């Protein structure tokens, strides 16, 4: 009996060992390649950003598109979503390195340069554009961020999120201001009229601890003055140029010199600024997109706010200097890029066509809040909503950010400059010379990454 029992236990263990070897081999094979992602002609996978405000409505839209596409082509579409840009970046890095992953990636506009630098995404041919519905139906400003040059586009615009400003109409009325400012000089003057520190009310806001707002705002100032972050040929970093220094200083002047922004807002991120706006403590909040509307609609300022494009003439000037652009917003939105490893590229572009058609674009905009890139769909929405009209007006002056592979470095370097300057203001040792030295350091870091 004892012998039998020992044997059966051994046999059991041996069988377990064999099974484990088998499982390990399978697992490793799974890691190494196989059918995961990549598309096989019968299916397509899409990696899309999850709507933070309307995930349910977005899911319904995706289901509808899947059903319609399967009916049209017989190809099944599966959707995988991400909640943060970090998740998006990691997925992209993994997919590019392993040659495995989704067929279609939805990228934010500033992510395109980094994605293109990896060389992991398919450059659209004229035939691909035909399958994707063509360029002519899409806002031309959005196409400027679809790839490093017009002949090397790696993506098709999907939705747009132009930036504008929102203002408190009640505070405007009390201050006797009849219309939103068109120049930054008017902006400062209007903000001074609104500011009442005894009530905790300020005409404007700044959010130096945000990872994105500072560079977006500085970038519009810089372009309006005719300057750049990176030279036109993308070879030289220009963060230490006088225009960039002026732009950064002007923004911090709001808190330190003109006193039109809360001097104690150095730890603010965009959500903190929005919170102050919805509490009626801020007259004008700049660099916001349509995504803030659901929050505003259900807040204290309900019915007391309106949107307008941001001013386009630099501070202290009546008109833009030579080379200055009426940059009221960066070109912003989502883009659809097909991975080089995808075995179902034709199907992918057909799906992209469906996603950018007139009806689906209107439905997506209604579901999620982003604006359509399809011109016909955008015109229709502008005729129906004042908000859409203001943002589409801002889009007319949208200018692209530099298509350099060093963009991610530039973003983090400038966020770092902003955080350090905010710290200096809080500690009482802020000075223009500090702005200069921090920008010079950031410039060196970005220059090292330019190819």
């Amino acid at each position, binding site marked *: 009996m004892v012998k039998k029992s020992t044997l059966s236990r051994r046999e059991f263990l041996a069988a377990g060992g064999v099974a484990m*070897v088998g499982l390990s081999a399978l697992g490793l094979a799974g890691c190494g390649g196989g059918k995961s992602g990549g598309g096989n002609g019968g299916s397509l996978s899409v990696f899309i950003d999850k709507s933070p405000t309307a995930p349910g409505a977005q899911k319904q839209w995706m289901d509808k598109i899947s059903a319609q596409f399967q009916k049209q082509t017989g190809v099944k579409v599966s959707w995988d979503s991400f909640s943060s840009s970090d998740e998006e970046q990691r997925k992209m890095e993994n997919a590019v390195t392993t040659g495995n992953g989704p067929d279609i990636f939805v990228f934010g506009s500033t992510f395109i340069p*980094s994605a293109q630098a*990896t060389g992991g995404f398919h450059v659209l041919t004229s035939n691909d554009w035909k399958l994707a519905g063509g360029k002519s139906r899409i806002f031309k400003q959005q196409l400027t961020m679809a790839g490093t040059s017009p002949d090397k586009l790696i993506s098709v615009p999907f939705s747009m999120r132009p930036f504008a400003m929102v203002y408190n109409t009640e505070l405007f009325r009390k201050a006797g201001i009849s219309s939103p400012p068109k120049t930054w000089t008017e902006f400062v003057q209007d903000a001074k009229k609104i500011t009442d520190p005894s009530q905790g009310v300020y005409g404007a806001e700044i959010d130096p601890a945000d990872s994105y707002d500072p560079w977006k705002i500085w970038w519009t100032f810089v372009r309006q003055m005719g300057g750049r972050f990176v030279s036109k040929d993308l070879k030289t970093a220009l963060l230490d140029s006088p225009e960039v220094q002026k732009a950064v200083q002007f923004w911090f002047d709001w808190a330190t010199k003109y006193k039109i922004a809360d001097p*104690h807002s150095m*730890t603010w991120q965009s959500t*903190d600024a929005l919170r102050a706006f919805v509490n009626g403590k801020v007259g004008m909040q700049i660099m916001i997109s349509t995504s803030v509307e659901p929050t505003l609609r259900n807040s204290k300022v309900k019915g007391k706010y309106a949107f307008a494009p941001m001013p386009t003439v630099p501070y202290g000037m009546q008109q833009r200097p030579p080379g200055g652009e009426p940059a009221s917003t960066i070109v912003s939105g989502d883009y659809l890029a097909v991975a080089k490893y995808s075995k179902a590229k034709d199907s992918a572009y057909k799906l992209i066509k469906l996603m950018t058609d007139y009806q689906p674009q209107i439905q997506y905009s209604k579901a999620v809040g982003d604006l359509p890139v399809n011109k016909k769909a955008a015109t229709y929405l502008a005729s129906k909503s004042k908000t859409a009209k203001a943002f589409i007006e801002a889009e007319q002056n949208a200018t692209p950010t530099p298509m350099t592979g060093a963009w*991610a470095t530039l973003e983090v*370097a400038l966020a*770092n400059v902003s955080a350090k300057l905010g710290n200096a203001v809080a500690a009482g040792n802020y000075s223009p010379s500090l702005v200069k030295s921090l920008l010079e350091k950031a410039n060196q870091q970005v220059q090292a990454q330019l190819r």
Partner: protein
Amino acid sequence: MSRQPASEAFPAKPKRGSGRNVGGRPMWLLWPSVGLILFVVVIPFLIGVYISFLNLDQYTIRDWIHAPWAGLENYITGLTGGGVLQTSALTSLGVSVAFSVLTTLVTTPIGILAALTVNTQFRGRALIRSLYLIPYVIPTFVTALLWRMMFLNGTGLVDRFLSAIGVASVNTYWLIGPRSFWAMTITEIWAVWAFIYIMVLAGLQSIPTELYEVAELDGATSWQKLTKVVLPQLKGLLGLALLLSTLFHFNNFTLPFVMFGSSPPTSATVLPLNIYVTSFNLFDFGLGSAMSVITLIIMLVPAFFYLRALRLGEVTAR
């Protein structure tokens, strides 16, 4: 508790060279596990070391194996803080060590005291035990967001309270500058003290009641019972809990990331955050790997003590 002779502990001497049978056990069954460890731990580690000598970034990631050789450049940048975050691996290591050791030192007495308060039977004990666990079960990112709001200057609860009792200005900055270290540490202490509490409570439950009775008969005071009976009994468990706790705090990435984002103040740039931002936000995988290797080499010292403590535990348990 004397240690057994080796011959008793391992009755069958392994047959050298056979590799198949030790003490009647089919040792070849270990191979799948060894293989997995090789693929999951050893090979990625070696790749990490290799990457630390490369200029691996967004331009070269697709064909990473052929990325240009960087020599010791990444190590020099990592040690001197020449990266975009401008915080060296050594500075970050200092922040991480201070953060993890301090948090452990503060949470230990709190955890022990809390465990002692609910060790004996009383009405409502289950409720208090549950309440103690609340901060520990809240997801870290929620804790970080809550405390970020509380530490906001001007409107946050912390500044309002400090200003109300006349200790500090209502506009004391906690999320930038040197105080950010304290904001992060206080939040961590609040969130994880219950770990020590759980471990100590488990230890307390295993102390035989006879020991208390004997101490009682000998006329021991409560303090004597704590120092002469309870703490010596908990020594092994507490040592392990402190080590695990320190390592847990050391590896906490979520809390500083949610509280300070991708441009953290230097005093809150803990090592995991520095390496993450460098590698994944800035695409500088070579520098990120070099910083990881530097850390690994330095952390081998406490790791040695950790492994030693585990071995001691094994011997005691035998």
